[in-house]
Each structure stands twice: as C-alpha cells, then as structure tokens.
C-alpha cells in the first residue's frame, strides 16, 4: 500500500527519465545527463551500451548526448561524484541545474515541488468544524517549499543547507516520501533509510534484539536478511553485552548507537541524515562519519541536512542551498557554502569569496578613451581614459553594491582609487558595465593594472575582489621612472 499513492506509484512504475525528457526545462536539459540517451544506455535490454562513463573514456555515439562535464559550458554546475570530471564548476552560481552525474540512474526526482503548511487555526481539526465551516479562507498559509526542482542521481552525496526555517528538513521529508508535496511530483527509487531521528521506532519495553528486528522490518527487510545482518549490527553498535536487555535501560547514547547501526545496515540505496550527527560522543561521531564516507565510496546516495557547512564541504559533492523555501543554489559545495556564509553574515570574518563564486562577479575590464569607445591600451599623459568593469550579477546578490576600483602599478602599489557614488549602485541579476572615466591622465608613466573590490552598499560587507591581468600603459617622451617631472640638467663648475 503505497502511501503517496499517485506520485510514488507512478514513479516506481515508469522510469523517471521518461517523464523528464518529456518535460522540457530550458536549454540546459538538452545537454543534461537525463537526456534521451540515458534510458537506452541503462536499459538492461541493450547491453551493448556501457553505462560507466565516469571511469571509462566515453565511446562515440550515444554518450555524446550526456554532455561530458567541462567540455560543455551548459553542463550542470555541480557534477559531483564523477571521477574524472574535469571542471566541476562549469558555470558557477548557476541555479537549479545541478543534475545527476552523467549516465547515473536517477534515485530521487522532484519536479516543481511545493509544500504549503496550513496554519493550525485555519484547519478543521474536529468533525464538527469540518461540517460547520467547509472550505474557509486559506489565510495564513505558509509555503515551506516553492517550486523546487531536484534530481538526485545514484551515488551523489548532497548537502541541504540554509538558514533556520528555510525548508531544508521539509524538503528532506518530502523527498523521503514522509510528507506529500502540495504540488509537484516526487519519485523515489530504492530503499530509503532515514536517520531523521535515530531509534524512532524503538519500543522501550522490548529487548535490543527485538527492536533491531522490528526496526529493520519496518525499513523493508525480510527476516532472512535481518538474520544475516544481525551480528554485524550488534558489532557496529558495540552493544553485544546489552543486546538482550530492554531498550528502556539503555543510555541515550546506546540508544542512538543501536538506531544508527540498524539504519546503516539495512543496505539503503538512499540515506537521509538530518542533523543527527550532533548526538553521541566524539568517538561515535567519528564512526558515523567513517560509515558515511564508506557509503560514499560504495556509490550510495546520501542526503545531508546540517548546519555544519564544514561538514558539507568535507563530505558532499553537491550542495542545495535553500532560502525561504526556494532553491537558490545547486552545485559545487565550495561555492554554495560561501554563498550561504555570505547570506548568513558569517562571511566577513572569513574574508570575501573568490570572485568566481561570488554573487557579483567582475567579469572583465576594458580600457578606452570614451565610454563604449574602441578599446585602447596605450595612452599619453593628459588623455582621457575610461575603465569599464563588466559585472555579472546573479540571484542572491546584494541589491545595492559598492565598487572600489584601484589602479595598481608595479609591486601591486595602488596608485589611485575610484569608487562608485555614495549609496552604491542598484543592480539586478544580469550583466552590467560600470565606467570610471578619468578626463586627464596624470603624468605618471608605466603599465598599470586594475583591481576591483565589490561590497554590499547597505552593510559594507565585502562580496569579492578581483585583480585583472589586463594592463594599460601611459607613456611619455622621457626614458625611465614613474613621474614626468619638469627639470633642468646643467653642468656646474
């Protein structure tokens, strides 16, 4: 009896890629791994198509459609878990296209997932209310998730991050099939073990042994399977001496240990971890992390919900960043955690983000006499110079940004600085060009480079810094030195 009658059963019956390719999602999909070539390669009926693209040189033919990462600019931003992925940061900061690793089967697929929580006082909670007020106004409903598209392939380790109340745990529960999405579809393939709360199914009146059997049985194992795994579970939990005691006599640490041991031994295809690693002593935590690392190596799918961004950086090969229920970033963990730190305001302590990962990226710089004019690199003192900085602004950037543009000389010595007017510049997502015009170049000779600082105009928090390699030169008739100085040369005596 499937509990998500519609979505889940459909998901199980028809391979998700069939539906996915039928629902175009913009040009990215064309090159995305779930393209039309994938089913043929995965279909057991066509054994001629090898489906191990990560480790093998891609043969010609259908594999081309997988769009090998790095070779294609439109490849998913995060191509994790794929050995040999050349450049995991195909297009940094791109939102919503961190698809599964090329060629791997889709384990979890969520399309347009939204979840609305009806506020308690709006809901009929008794039969009387049900009949007295039917279909009352839906006032203070709360959207915990808004139109989230997620495709998680087999073998990925995905971190779900975001501020408190951003919808991480809701997304995890929806993907786990515990909550039904208000709209959208979720399909899950394979056995899910959730470490949402360890030992959730334990009954204190029963012995550890009985609880192991019961819990594993709930998670979908047969008696035979449990018999086979039982010793290993007990060994992992280090509770052999207490296994026949009632669970109610266990310490909370022992309780959690047994719960973890069961959850990781049920041979899950998908492991869901929700902040549970915060419990237990350090030795146990290490053991948990080691087990999770082992799962990664075995190519299982793991979903993490955690506030520990360090953990995500260390353990995950993909991050989903949520903000007020929307997916704002999907891709490389290094980028995502920086983005999140920036949002949470914890970044200044750690310095600005590398420009490639920033929300405002100084893309290029150009020199010309007049704004928009022909580029020129050689100038004479007194001439007009315009330094044009091209910015790529993505979703999640500060509304008002502030630019400091330094002209630097040899040994990175700042010669002068130009900044945007007070209050900053209002920029939306997209490409922008900021022109700094110097009417008369000073009589300062040499080759100069440009360094751009971007900061949030409202908070003053630094966003990013980039020093461009491009140079412009100011030349004069004199032979050497920086400044052109009026002088006389005379022989005396």
């Amino acid at each position, binding site marked *: *009896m*499937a*509990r998500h*009658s519609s979505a*889940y059963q459909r*998901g*199980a019956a028809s*391979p998700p890629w069939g539906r996915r390719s039928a629902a175009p999602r913009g040009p990215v999909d064309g090159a995305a791994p779930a393209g039309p070539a994938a089913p043929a390669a*995965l279909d*057991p009926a066509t*054994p*001629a198509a*090898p*489906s*191990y693209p*990560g*480790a*093998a040189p891609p043969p010609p033919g259908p594999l081309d459609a997988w769009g090998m990462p790095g070779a294609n600019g439109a490849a998913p931003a995060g191509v994790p878990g794929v*050995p040999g992925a050349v450049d995991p940061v195909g297009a940094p900061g791109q939102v919503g296209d961190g698809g599964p690793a090329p*060629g*791997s*089967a889709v*384990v979890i697929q969520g399309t347009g997932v939204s979840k609305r929580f009806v506020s308690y006082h709006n809901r*009929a*909670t*008794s*039969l*009387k209310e*049900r009949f007295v007020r039917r279909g009352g106004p839906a006032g203070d409903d709360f959207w915990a998730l808004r139109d989230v598209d997620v495709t998680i392939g*087999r*073998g990925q380790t995905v971190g779900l991050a975001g501020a408190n109340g951003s919808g991480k745990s809701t997304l995890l529960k929806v993907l786990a*099939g*515990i*909550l*039904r999405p208000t709209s959208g579809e979720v399909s*899950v393939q*394979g*056995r*899910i073990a*959730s470490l*949402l*709360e360890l030992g*959730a*199914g334990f*009954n204190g009146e*029963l012995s550890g042994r009985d609880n192991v*059997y*019961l819990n594993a*049985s*709930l*998670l*979908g194992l047969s008696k035979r399977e449990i018999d*086979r*795994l039982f010793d*290993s579970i007990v060994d992992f939990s280090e509770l052999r001496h207490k296994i026949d005691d009632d669970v109610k006599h266990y310490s909370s640490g022992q309780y959690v240990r047994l719960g973890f041991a069961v959850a990781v031994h049920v041979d899950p*295809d998908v492991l869901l971890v929700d902040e549970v690693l915060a419990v237990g002593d350090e030795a146990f935590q290490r053991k948990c992390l080691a087990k999770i690392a*082992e799962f*990664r190596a*075995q*190519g299982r799918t793991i979903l993490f919900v955690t506030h520990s961004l360090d953990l995500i950086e260390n353990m995950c090969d993909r991050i989903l960043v949520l903000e007020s229920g929307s997916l704002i970033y999907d891709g490389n963990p290094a980028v995502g955690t920086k983005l999140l730190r920036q949002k949470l305001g914890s970044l200044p302590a750690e310095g600005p983000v590398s420009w490639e990962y920033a929300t405002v990226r100084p893309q290029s710089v150009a020199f010309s006499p007049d704004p928009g004019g022909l580029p020129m690199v050689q100038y004479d003192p007194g001439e007009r110079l315009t330094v044009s900085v091209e910015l790529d602004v993505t979703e999640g950037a500060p509304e008002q940004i502030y630019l400091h543009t330094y002209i630097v000389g040899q040994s990175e010595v700042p010669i002068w600085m130009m900044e945007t007017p007070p209050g900053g510049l209002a920029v939306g997502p997209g490409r922008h060009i900021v022109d700094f015009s110097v009417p008369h170049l000073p009589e300062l000779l040499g080759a100069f480079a440009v360094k751009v600082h971007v900061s949030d105009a409202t908070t003053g928090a630094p966003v990013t810094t980039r020093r461009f390699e491009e140079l412009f030169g100011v030349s004069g008739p004199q032979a050497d030195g920086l400044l052109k100085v009026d002088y006389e040369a005379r022989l005396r005596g």
Partner: protein
Amino acid sequence: MSHLADAPLPAGTPTAPSPQQVGPGPGQHAMDPSRLARRSRAQTRVRWELLRNLVRKDLKVKYKGSTLGFAWSLANPMLLLVVYTFVFQIVLKSGIHRFGIYLMSGLLVWNAFSGSVSSACGSVVANANLVKKVRFPLAVLPLSAVGFAAVHFLLQLLVLFVVILILGYNLFGADLLLLVPAGAVAITFTVALSLLVSALNVRYRDTSHLLDVALLAWFWLNPMVYAFGLIQTQLHEWTWVYLLNPMAVVVITFQRAIYDPGGGSTGSTPVLADPGYTFYLEHLAVAGVISLVLLWVGLHVFRTMQADFAEDL
C-alpha cells in the same frame, strides 16, 4: 555483512566497461532500476512479515513481566462466562438454555471486533513519532491492531470449544463450517472499519470519542445477551433492517455454528434465528457486500489521508 561483502570499489576506480555490464561496474552498490523500484515498493507495501512482527511485538509488550501472561487473556472471557451465566440465567432468568455458551459464542467475535476497531483508531496517533520520521507502509498500524485482536480471538475460541466439550455439549457438526464465511465477513468488516477510523482520527480527533460511544450502543444492536427471536417478534417483517448490521449477522451465524440449545428450549421464543443454513448464508452474502463496500471506502480514505499523516500529527 552482505552489502559490505559485495566488495564495493571506490567510486574512482576505473573499470573497463564490458558489454555485459548493465549497472555501473560489478562491485558498485548500484543496481538496475527494476531492483531499485522493487526495494522502494518493499518500503511502501504492507507485507505479511512486517504485520506478523508488529503483532508479535504487541503481544510481547502486553504480556511482558506477567507470570501468567497469555493466560489472563483466556481467563478473562471465562470469568465473564461465569458471571453472566449467574446474572442472566439464575438471577434474571432470561429463559435461554445454557446461557453462558450462548453468550460467549456471540460475545467473543464482538469483542474481537470492537477491540480491533478501538485500538486501530488510536494506532496512527500513538505511533506519531514513527510516522513522522520513517518511511514505512502506514496501513500496518491499524492492521496490526486487527491482527492482535484476531490472535486473542482465536485462542479464546479454542478455549470456548474446550469448555463446551468438557461440559459434554454438542459441538462438532456441519454447522461448524458456518464459521468460515462468518469469519471472513467479520475480518473484512473489521479491517474496513479499522482503516477508516484510524485515518479519520488523525485529523479529526473526535473520532475516537465518537467511536467509543458508538461501540457502546452498537453492542446492544447485536443479539448477544438477548435472543434473536426477541427481535423477530418485535420487528416482524422489518427484521432485515436489523440485519443490515454486518456484525449482527456474524453474531447470529456464530451462535448457529457453536451454540447447541440442547434438547428442550424452555422459552417461547426460539433462541436461534433459523434452524437451517440458507438463512445465514443469504444474510452473510449481504453483509459481505456491505463489508466490501466499506472496505473500499476505508482503503480509499486511508490512502487519501495517509500522505498528510506526518503533517497532521
């Protein structure tokens, strides 16, 4: 340690793909989609084995620490038998011969029914912690409540048979076969109502209170402490309305199968509804149809509502 013994290669280990390989490499944890789908279904389908484990758990928890254990559950109805026999046969003189046996032959199945339904009603709410955290087939919760009651019922029935044989009454005969269709209707009806109320009770917590009251009244709508003949003489041609209650049909069939009124019926009204079989089979058929319709409704309601259980709890 099976899945570890599956010799997982590190994810980065290059493996030359051979044409025979379907999954990503031989040592990988990966498997073909049909196996994944099957494992996914194993987590969302009601399996007998899981149901059995849950019933066993309930039994274990219930009789843990009591020396007599299961015997209490058997002693309970026997004590009832003695008390009711005393009250109805000696004090009130109900006029039903061998009243204790008559009572028990109907009461056991009723107790199983009402016990199932009322414990199923609270089963989802009582396991809120599990429902909110773990993906498993939720219908096992009310179903295991039914299973728990069914196990007790069968053992109590066995004890009743033993008592009847000890007392030297007539038990074995073709009429005992009526227990099969009657039992089938009873289990269908019980499962149907259990699914329905357990789902409704998650959102509308009034359900359990309403159910308590309803079961109390419902008890008297079955001819257990009074003879069915009483109804026939009161309702005449409207008796069929009374028999729209599937439990009433089940009860009278159980009485026909188990209870032997003995040689002389002392009262003026016949105790059993009908001396033949067709009467019972016809009414069981009607009750069966009603039960199946209710089962469909119950399944539908449960399936529709279960997706929101985690949210409503």
